[in-house]
C-alpha cells in the first residue's frame, strides 16, 4: 500500500537536496585509487565558455567529485536571473547595467549582434536537443556539483549571498583553490 501524504502530520519526508552549502572541504582523494576530483575554475562569463563549463561540470558529476570555483566574470553567471541591478555603489550598479547578470543573460564574445547570436545559438540548441547552460547548471546542482563563489569578486562587484543562486557553498579565496589542486584535484580553467 502506498502511503498517502498526510499534510501537517509528517512533513518530514521532504528531501532537502544539495541546497545545504558546505564550506569547501579540503578532502584528499580516498585511500583506494578512485578517479581524481575535478576542479573547474570558471573565470569567464561569456555564453560559449559558460556553456562549456556547465557541460563539463554536469558530466564530471556523473563520474566523481567536482567543484566549480566561480570568480570574476564567471560569478556574474551565478547571480539570480531575476536580479537586474546589483552592487552597492554607482560603479558596481553601472557594471551590472552594462552586462546583465544571470545564467540566462550571457552574451557571445564574438558575433553577439545585440542578442541575435545567442538567439540563434539557443534556437539551434533546441533543435538538436542540447541542454541550455541554465538546465545544465540545475542538473549539476542536483547531482552534487559544489559551486564555490569567490569572496574577492563578491566584494568587488558588491554582491551579497542573497544576490547569488541558492545552493552555493561559503565564499572562499585563492588559497582554498590552490590547496585543492595541491591535494590532487585536476584543474580546469575556463
Amino acid at each position, binding site marked *: 500500500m502506498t502511503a498517502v501524504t498526510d499534510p501537517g502530520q509528517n512533513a518530514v519526508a521532504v528531501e532537502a537536496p544539495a541546497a545545504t552549502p558546505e564550506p569547501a572541504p579540503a578532502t584528499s582523494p580516498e585511500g583506494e585509487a578512485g578517479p581524481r576530483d575535478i576542479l573547474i575554475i570558471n573565470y569567464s562569463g561569456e555564453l560559449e565558455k559558460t556553456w562549456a563549463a556547465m*557541460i563539463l561540470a554536469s558530466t564530471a558529476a556523473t563520474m*566523481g567529485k567536482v567543484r566549480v570555483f566561480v570568480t570574476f566574470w564567471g560569478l556574474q553567471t551565478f547571480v539570480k536571473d531575476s536580479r537586474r541591478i546589483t552592487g552597492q555603489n554607482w560603479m558596481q550598479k553601472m557594471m551590472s547595467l552594462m552586462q546583465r547578470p544571470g545564467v540566462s543573460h550571457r552574451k557571445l564574445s564574438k558575433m553577439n549582434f545585440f542578442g541575435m547570436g545567442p538567439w540563434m545559438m539557443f534556437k539551434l540548441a533546441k533543435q538538436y536537443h542540447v*541542454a541550455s547552460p541554465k538546465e545544465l547548471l540545475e542538473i549539476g546542482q542536483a547531482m552534487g556539483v559544489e559551486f564555490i563563489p569567490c569572496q574577492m569578486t563578491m566584494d568587488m562587484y558588491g554582491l551579497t549571498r542573497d544576490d547569488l543562486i541558492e545552493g552555493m557553498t561559503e565564499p572562499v579565496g585563492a588559497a582554498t583553490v590552490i590547496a585543492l589542486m595541491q591535494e590532487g584535484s585536476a584543474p580546469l580553467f575556463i
Partner: protein
Amino acid sequence: MAMEIAQTVDAKGLSCPMPIVRTAQAIKGLASGQLLEVLATDAGSVNDFAAWSKTTGNAIVEQSADGGVYRFVLRKK
C-alpha cells in the same frame, strides 16, 4: 539465466552530455547488479559510455547499434 532489464533510459535525440547524465541519474535508483538499458542516437556515446563505464565501474554487458540507435546495457556496480 539472463538477467532482466530493470529500467530503460530513452536518450534518443539527446545531445552530449544528456545521455550520460540521464544514465547516471537512472542508475542511482538501481540496486547493485541490476541492469540498465540505454538507447541513444548521439554518435559520440559509443566512446562516451566506454569512458564512463571505465571510471564509474558500471560495466557494459551488452552493446549494439541498429539504424543509428545505439543500445547499451549496463550492470550497476
